[in-house]
């Protein structure tokens, strides 16, 4: 096999169309990615280097052809192979796929920006990641190599793009790819298991931990103590990862084992302090039980992660003193603001069917909250700020039906679609469900 050159032509094996190779846009472990042109439209072509063993080339080709045949999972995040390609008079093969939009940037770039995304955007991104991998796993497939190189994000919309889908295969099937060490499930690193949907769940939780806590969940003081330049003491990078991420992994915030806390200047400290207990508990489980019990019972499945992210979205508020973004924790209502260190006034909560939404600007009530399956994710109410009401928020009726507001000693009032309610402790009826607004820490009104 040889490298392709600009101007070379490759032929799609099913569509029989010819693509003209353009500039090189990426380099992977297995091959090179080029821009390619088909009748004026841009695509990307990944062209493979020869495998160490020729038999592996046949395996790779067969696996890719299967992906082409099965088509993309329902989630749009996957940059999926469209067709296999070959070049006349040249050994080797590749596949053509859509070109990733320019709006996507690396997660590393987004998380290192001077102004990182706010919680609402981080959660939207997290939900998109969870939904995309859920669609893959539901189709009986697994990804096998979740890492920073393969996942991209549009920081403006929260959309994600998943590339390098040539790693994808049938869950439980044989694989040529083990993954990227820092993101591998420990049992894969120890060669006790092959990559699978179950190990994907570990890597997904690890990626989400990076997204919300800005560090690696196993990289703490124990790892720090292993670094050395002294002769005989220094471990290679591979030995270090195998030891701390594979053979002796300890979660940095393990409640029962404090030996591997983050190093003192780690950003993980401040981010960990911001999140409510229920959200942190998901990661405690992922990196304690999820390591010792590496199966679908020990690990968090996408449905659980999704539920936690939805609940976190309902917890977003801001400090009443300095307006720093915060997350309300009903189990720790007196928590001081991370920025100005004052204890904010408790927020107003909207409670329906046993769950609560903090009524801060941007919060939404959807059909999901009302368990109205016919409404799904439709937004029924959205919280807004208005300069005419300083220090207060309003709730706009975004649905198609009026709300009924019950005020003590008054006739019920209606909030018509598009109208707004000045948020205060009241009882409402929305889509035939009883909804209360009350101060956190106080009982909802009768």
């Amino acid at each position, binding site marked *: 096999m040889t490298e392709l050159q600009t101007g070379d032509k490759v032929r799609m094996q099913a569509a029989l169309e010819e693509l003209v190779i353009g500039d090189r846009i990426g*380099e*992977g*472990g*297995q091959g090179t990615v080029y821009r390619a042109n088909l009748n004026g439209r841009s695509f990307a072509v990944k062209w493979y280097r020869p495998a*160490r063993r020729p038999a592996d080339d046949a395996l790779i080709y067969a696996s890719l052809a299967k992906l082409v045949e099965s088509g993309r999972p329902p989630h749009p995040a996957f940059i999926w192979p469209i067709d296999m390609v070959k070049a006349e008079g040249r050994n080797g093969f590749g596949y053509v796929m859509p070109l990733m939009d320019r709006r996507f940037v*690396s*997660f*590393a*770039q987004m*998380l*290192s*920006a*001077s*102004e*990182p*995304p*706010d*919680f609402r955007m981080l959660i939207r991104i997290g939900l998109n990641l969870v939904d995309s991998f859920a669609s893959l796993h539901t189709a009986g497939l697994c990804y096998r190599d979740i*890492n*920073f*190189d393969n996942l991209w994000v549009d920081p403006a919309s929260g959309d994600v793009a998943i590339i390098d889908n040539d*790693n994808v295969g049938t869950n439980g099937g*044989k*694989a*040529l*790819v*083990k*993954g*990227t*060490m*820092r993101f591998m499930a420990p049992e*894969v690193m120890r060669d006790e298991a*092959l990559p699978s949907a179950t190990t994907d769940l570990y890597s997904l939780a690890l990626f989400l931990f*990076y997204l919300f806590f*800005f*560090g*690696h969940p196993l*990289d703490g003081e124990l790892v720090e103590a292993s*670094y050395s*330049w*002294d*002769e005989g003491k*220094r471990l290679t*990078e*591979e030995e270090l990862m*195998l030891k701390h991420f594979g053979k002796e992994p300890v979660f940095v915030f393990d409640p029962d084992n404090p030996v591997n806390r983050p*190093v003192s200047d*780690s950003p*993980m400290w401040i*981010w960990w302090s*911001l999140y409510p207990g229920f959200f942190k508990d998901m990661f405690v489980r992922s990196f304690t039980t999820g390591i010792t019990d590496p199966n679908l019972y020990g690990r968090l499945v996408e449905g659980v992660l999704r539920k936690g992210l939805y609940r976190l979205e309902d917890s977003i508020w801001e400090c009443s003193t300095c*307006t*720093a*973004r915060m997350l309300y924790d009903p189990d720790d209502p007196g928590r001081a603001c991370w*920025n100005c260190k004052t204890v904010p006034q408790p927020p107003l909560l909207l409670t329906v069917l046993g769950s609560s939404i903090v009524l801060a*600007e*941007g919060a939404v009530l959807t059909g999901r909250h009302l368990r109205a399956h016919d409404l799904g994710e439709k937004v029924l109410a959205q919280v807004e*700020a*208005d*300069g005419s009401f300083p220090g207060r928020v309003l709730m706009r009726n975004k649905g198609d039906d009026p709300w009924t507001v019950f005020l003590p000693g008054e006739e019920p009032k209606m909030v018509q679609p598009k109208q707004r309610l000045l948020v205060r402790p009241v009882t409402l009826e929305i889509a035939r469900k009883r909804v209360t607004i009350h101060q956190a820490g106080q009982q909802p009104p009768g």
Partner: protein
Amino acid sequence: MNAMSKTIMPGGGIARRPLHFIILADCSGSMRADDGKKIQALNFAIAEMLQHLTAWERDQERCDVLVRAIAFATEPRWHIPQPTPVSRLRWMPLTGIVGGRTNMAPAFRMAASVLGNDQLERRAFSPVLLLITDGMPTDDPKDFDRGLDTLMGLRAGREAMRLAVAIGRDARSEALTRFIADPQQPVLLASSIDEIADKLKLVSRIVSQGSSAAQDEPDEGQPVNDFDVVV
């Protein structure tokens, strides 16, 4: 968010480890040749390389790249003495020294002076050393050996990724091959200076034992801990 409020979130980025990158650039008299075009080309190439490095650093979560530079001729001097984040570096052009020789040993010693066990952060990755020259070393051969020994006597020097760029075909020499001391890593010709950033991209692949990690015996279903990093 209303127009009046500003989003206040913790910043600071993600936790990364330092990767020291030291450039040893030849500023001998011959670099002034062709009416200074050679040294100008070198400055341009380094600035371009630093842009590639900045882009590479931006898109990965592991390394903070910290750059220093030594300009060497008869004697070496620090051109960038402090480890400087690559994204903040503004490359100040090098100039060739009239009558300056290509003494490499003192430059090796100068690099070694910042790579001692107690000078590097413990958590730092093995450094990257990049030697760029247009000619053969002019050191006394024994002194060249001693200079190289000083560098290779340090763990960080020995484990460093050592790259060499030869400007002009004549500059490829046994000396550069000995500096690299890795048969897998050839001397790069200046015409392919673009490849340096690609080589550094490879650093992340090597340290993370990356996505090409392949099982040796997939047919037998026995995973093995054998990583196949392909450049």
